[in-house]
């Protein structure tokens, strides 16, 4: 069971640093869906001349950055309903075709936020169990994308672990997450637990284990 473990929260990487770590792991030429919010930062950190094609589930492939104020077109929005642009070589399609890209395994990577990730790769990120239930495209993205990356704070605001033995919140998908990028560490989901690929310089492995509900190893 989850419990409050960290009374004082050590600060790890900021969200831009996490985004840049994810950006480094996206190969040239890959098709990527970035979730609304924090994951959107990733596109700013693609370096080394790599070209990535961004997909937005509302029927847009080849999404570009937000428009200038005077270029806003309310018919050109992303899945978060914010104005965006389309790059040369982009295309529009209808919703069934757009989700065929996701569900048919054509999206190489999706990057999503998380409320909880279990040691088996289960993801909970759509419902706190209260309020109006609203799922959007999250369940499709995790079920269909070739690789599901989670970008998250390691702990909740209350200091509870988000990486857990078993999710307590309603699942978005079971055994879907391949890698977690938190402010404390980058971790792969493996049969033996959360495998640390990189550890924040302020964090010891012991501390990481303490604030993680489930086996952590290097």
């Amino acid at each position: 069971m989850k419990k409050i473990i960290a009374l004082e929260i050590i600060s790890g990487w900021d969200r831009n640093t996490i985004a840049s770590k994810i950006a480094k792991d996206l190969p040239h030429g890959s098709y990527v869906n970035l979730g609304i919010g924090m994951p959107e930062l990733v596109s700013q950190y693609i370096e080394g001349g790599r070209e990535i094609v961004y997909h937005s589930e509302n029927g847009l492939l080849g999404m570009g950055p937000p428009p200038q104020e005077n270029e806003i077109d309310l018919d050109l929005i992303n899945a978060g309903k914010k104005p965006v642009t389309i790059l040369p070589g982009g295309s529009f399609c209808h919703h069934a075709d757009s989700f065929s890209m996701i569900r048919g395994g054509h999206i190489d990577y999706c990057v999503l936020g998380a409320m909880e990730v279990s040691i088996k790769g289960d993801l909970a990120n759509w419902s706190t169990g209260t309020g109006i239930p609203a799922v959007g495209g999250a369940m499709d993205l995790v079920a269909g994308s070739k690789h599901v990356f989670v970008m998250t704070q390691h702990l909740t605001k209350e200091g509870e672990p988000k990486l857990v033995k078993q999710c307590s919140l309603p699942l978005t998908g079971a055994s879907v997450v391949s890698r977690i990028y938190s402010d404390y560490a980058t971790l792969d989901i493996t049969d033996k637990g959360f495998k640390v690929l990189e550890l924040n310089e302020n964090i010891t492995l012991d501390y990481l284990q303490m604030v993680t509900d489930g086996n952590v190893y290097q």
Partner: protein
Amino acid sequence: MKINKIMNEMSDLLSDVFDGATIMIGGFGEAGSPIELLHGLIDNGAKNLTIIANNAGNGRVGLGALIGQNQVKKVICSFARSAKGITFPELYAKGKIELEVVPQGTLAERIRAAGAGIPGFYTATGVGTPLAEGKEEKLFNGKKYILENALHADFAFVKADVADRYGNLTYNKTARNFNPIMCMAAKQSIVQVRNIIDPKDTDPEQVVTPGIFVNRIIKIENPIIESKAIAEGAVYP
């Protein structure tokens, strides 16, 4: 006598919409949302409607207004939360409106299935989640999938960009979204467009929705822009 699906009066366009009808509403957010048709439906007054859409309306225009008029019994959608949603949350909190949550891709595919004559299909989306509860499961190559059924409607309310008299439609950018598949899935597809062209000027390579999926068209040259209307405090009726 030529095929001509263009009509001039909103009241004629919607005259057969009945109490208890199931209506698909195109659009994703405000892009492609048929606000004038929805206002026509408020004037029409049909009640106990089941609405199939991605969202549940913003402010007190379009779908938000229709819900606010208590004409809607149930909403089937993927995302009923919205920063500018007023009417749905109010009624939902009071238990006065039903909600069926469907993952967005499953929603799209169920609509497309209805249009394509497929009564059911299997999908990995939702497996192992609360939204799979009560659904039939089946293994394909050792992996678990759930059965989803086609989602039909009596009417589709759709916004397109350009039409000809046969009902051939093109859309503007991401305002395409659910509109083409809803035209396929409904018994009667009712479309508002900004512009009508001669069929001779329709490029057969560029048609997104072929006329076979469209029943009635009305020209609304300057449709209401939802976000602006809401910012200005617009309320319909």
